[in-house]
């Protein structure tokens, strides 16, 4: 009986070794497919990798790569609880209850996603005026709007009835030795005012 049990344990250990090694091979293959760029022949497995990696093994290692961002964003808002608009104020200042180094980091991340959306979906009418209708119906704008309203709530204890956002895009001048193209001019995007009955 004891010898059978010892034999059984050994067989189980061998089986575990084979199964777990196989699992690791599959796991790291899919990890590489998921994290590497879509290069042939890896993209054949991309769909499988996406299904496997999300939500339990999601990761990405383009850390400040391929280039460090050469622009940054500054989010401002103004609000109105009646007809009078407030002055424009920063929506990123980590003061009071939200005083934490991660607050401006979150604001920047949300704005990066909004900026990508702007580059895709901002259109212009015949007079050359900006048309934000596609942008303001996208989730990235809602996330920034929600962040601003909540940030206002933590600052003042209330939620405004009306709010308007504007985002400045500032480019970092490249050093003299840099081969990078000179950056475009800084821009400011002023979004339409929003009524906030239910936020």
């Amino acid at each position, binding site marked *: 009986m004891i010898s059978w049990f010892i034999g059984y344990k050994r067989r189980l250990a061998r089986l575990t*070794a084979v199964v777990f090694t196989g699992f690791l091979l599959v796991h790291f293959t899919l990890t590489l497919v998921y994290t590497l760029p879509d290069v042939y022949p890896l993209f054949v497995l991309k769909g499988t990798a996406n299904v496997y990696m999300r939500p339990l093994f*999601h990761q990405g290692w383009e*850390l400040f790569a391929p280039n460090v961002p050469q622009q940054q964003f500054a989010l401002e808002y103004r609000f109105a609880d009646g007809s009078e608009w407030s002055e424009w104020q920063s929506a990123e200042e980590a003061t009071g209850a939200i005083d934490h180094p991660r607050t401006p980091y979150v604001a920047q991340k949300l704005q990066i996603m909004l900026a990508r959306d702007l580059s895709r979906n901002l259109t212009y009418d015949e007079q050359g005026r900006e048309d934000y209708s596609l942008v303001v119906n996208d989730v990235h704008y809602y996330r920034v709007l929600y962040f601003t309203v909540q940030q206002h709530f933590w600052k003042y204890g209330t939620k405004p009835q009306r709010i308007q956002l504007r985002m400045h895009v500032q480019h970092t001048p490249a050093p003299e*030795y840099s*081969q*990078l193209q000179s950056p475009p001019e800084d821009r400011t995007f002023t979004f339409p005012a929003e009524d906030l009955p239910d936020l």
Partner: protein
Amino acid sequence: LNAIQHSIDRLAAPLVNTNRIWLFKKVAYLWMLLNALYYLPVAEVFFGSEKLMMPYAAQPGLLNNITHLLAMNPEFGRLVYFGYIGAAFFSLIGIGWRIPRLFVFILGWMLYYGSLPTFNSALLLYQVFAFFLIFMGNGNATGSNAVLTRLSFVACQIQFLIVYLLAGGYKLAGQTWIEGSSLHFALHLDHFVTTAMRDALIGFEWPLRVLTIVGMTYQLVFPFLIWFKKLKWPLFAIGILFHGFIMVAMRLPDFGLAMIFGYTLFFTETHSRNIRQRLTSIF
């Protein structure tokens, strides 16, 4: 076939590098605990029912619904946040077998998805560690337990090396790392760098260029050189300076500490034993 069978039997042999495994488990759960406590003063702002991040619905599927519980239901914020801290603490002191470790893994994802984009890649790395740590036994593990422990430890090593290799590889595809201007641009990112820090460092053009290229090269060569015993400590020293700089200058304490703690995966058994003896004599 004999060679394969021999390799499999070696995997099932009693553990030898038990101190390395012990040390890695401790620092991994210590990082998870510290990372969660970093948000303690603003826990309500980042994870509570009035958090800054907009709630959103999960994709269909059981796992998505579990991991996105906090994303969909902000009212669970306190439970998830303090549950994670408790689970990380119990895992750190080794109480509760594998149950707290399982909770660390699940609650970690709830926090991550529930407060997107609060956490950076450091949590993603430690979530992978948290998964493999569930399978890691103690020093006296035998049989299949020893197999799982040994392979899980190797999996954590591979995952750590993937981070460096890919982070370095992606940088090769750009311009700012090759020409050495990355730190110049990084110092202008206001959400990472304070004005005082930028003013103090921005004038050192050549040191910044050299540091940029050293940082990228370090990430590319680490996965290959770390296996040479004589190079381990020089690599750790450079890494501590590199990540220490990022921690202080760019105010990313979580990521820097995550990578420095991760070096314990490559400590020798002798060094791990010495550190373990010192730590156990203190606590």
